[in-house]
């Protein structure tokens, strides 16, 4: 069979994987929605959760699409499409492809024509992310059991424990923004973007609380994120 990185066969594989992800998501969505109604969460809250999340997701989803564009130059569309739809993230897929290319001493500047190189990259991409999918079912009981024990022992500490986990995670990403400050003004761009995003969120918070604009809650995170991204577009050419 003649190999082509954009063959119909590979597209068919991609469509199967994408359908699997969609069906699984719809399955969990319907179950959680029904359960939400049973335990007394209002339809309005459930609807707002869906609308707000859907809007928020669009911009990061486009950045993932950009990952597909980047990888498609040498891997074609189907494989990056599959990898970005299941478990993947560009922060992993690109290094995985590069690492395999280095091992095989080939360049990733043009489309791959050798099927063996293509399948080697596909295997590395797949095997490298396996722990993320195998570990949740194995560790779930232990982790959830541990959390329940902490909560049962001391409810207040249980809540603080959870908040501290969030803040620890957020801190790592906030700290990362400061990594490039030594490279001059250019390195400050992420910090400015972060501050603008925080400022827009702060303004949204004031509008929600002081001016009773409750509807804004649904869009606040999306507005601050997209506002800060636009700010990055405007400020970057000025600083460079």
């Amino acid at each position, binding site marked *: *069979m003649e190999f082509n990185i954009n063959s119909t066969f590979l597209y068919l*594989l991609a469509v199967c994987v994408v359908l*699997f*992800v969609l069906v*699984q998501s719809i399955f*969990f969505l319907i*179950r*959680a*929605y029904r*359960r*939400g109604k049973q335990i007394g*969460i209002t339809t309005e809250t459930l609807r*707002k*959760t869906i609308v*707000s*999340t859907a809007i*928020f*997701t669009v911009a990061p*989803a486009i950045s*993932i*699409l950009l990952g597909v564009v980047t990888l498609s130059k040498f891997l074609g569309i189907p494989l990056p499409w*599959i990898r*970005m*739809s*299941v478990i*993947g*993230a560009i922060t992993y897929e690109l290094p*995985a492809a590069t*690492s*395999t290319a280095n*091992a095989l001493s080939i360049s990733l500047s043009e489309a791959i024509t050798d*099927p063996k*190189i293509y399948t*080697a990259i596909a*295997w590395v991409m*797949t095997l490298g992310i*396996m*722990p*993320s999918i195998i570990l*949740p079912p194995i560790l*779930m009981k232990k982790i*959830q059991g541990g*959390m329940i024990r902490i909560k049962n022992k001391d409810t207040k*500490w249980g809540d603080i*424990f*959870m908040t*501290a986990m969030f803040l*620890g995670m957020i*801190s*790592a990403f906030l*700290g990362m923004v*400061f*990594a490039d400050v030594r490279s001059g003004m250019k390195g400050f761009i*992420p910090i400015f*973007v*972060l501050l603008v995003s*925080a400022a827009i969120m702060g303004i949204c918070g004031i509008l929600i609380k002081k001016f009773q604009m409750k509807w804004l809650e649904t869009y606040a995170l999306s507005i*601050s994120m997209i506002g*800060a991204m636009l700010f990055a577009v405007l400020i*970057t050419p000025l600083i460079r």
Partner: protein
Amino acid sequence: MNDYIKKTDLYGKIWIWTAVVVVLMVPVAACLYYDAWPDGAAVLKGLLGVAPIYWTVGVIEVITYTPMLGTGGTYLAFVTGNLTSIKVPSALNAMENAQVKPGTEEGEVISTIAIATSSIVTTLVIVAGVIGLSALAPILSSEVLAPAFDNILPALFGGLAVVYVSRNWKIAIAPLIFMVVLFLCIPSLAGSVGVLVPVGVLVALAAARFMYKKGWL
């Protein structure tokens, strides 16, 4: 554990193990169809370049995010991926807006709905993008828009931080200072931020425990 969570755990396990098979079938199918099994040594070498760090990050992510996302949310999020840039922020934001706490059944339901919705939207955006790729690619990869996508994480975490840090600033101080100083001293760590998430979590937990014992929280 109530009946809903128990069933969610069971269904989650069935889905995730099916996903393992589906994910593995992709390279197997490509190898069989093209009769092109790769050189084992090449795969191993390629894997050695990425597996040590990504397997570690994988373990860390499972341990850190499972309590935040709940049972259904975790099973779904780890299959669909992109946890840090989409799934975790959307679940946290949704629980915050609905005023429910993670670890409760309400939190479980809202987190699952948020993760399912964002998985569906992400999948559909990529499908739309793939269909219109020839038209979209030049716009998306244009120089003008590049800074927007280069800065997506600060744009996202700035807004998210305001909500959490302002409400829990005492717990936030120690991990924030620690992380800012760490990245200022060793900028090259930015590439392995995933490994540093649990470090941030441990610092936050230690500081919170200390303040809790002292009665400051």
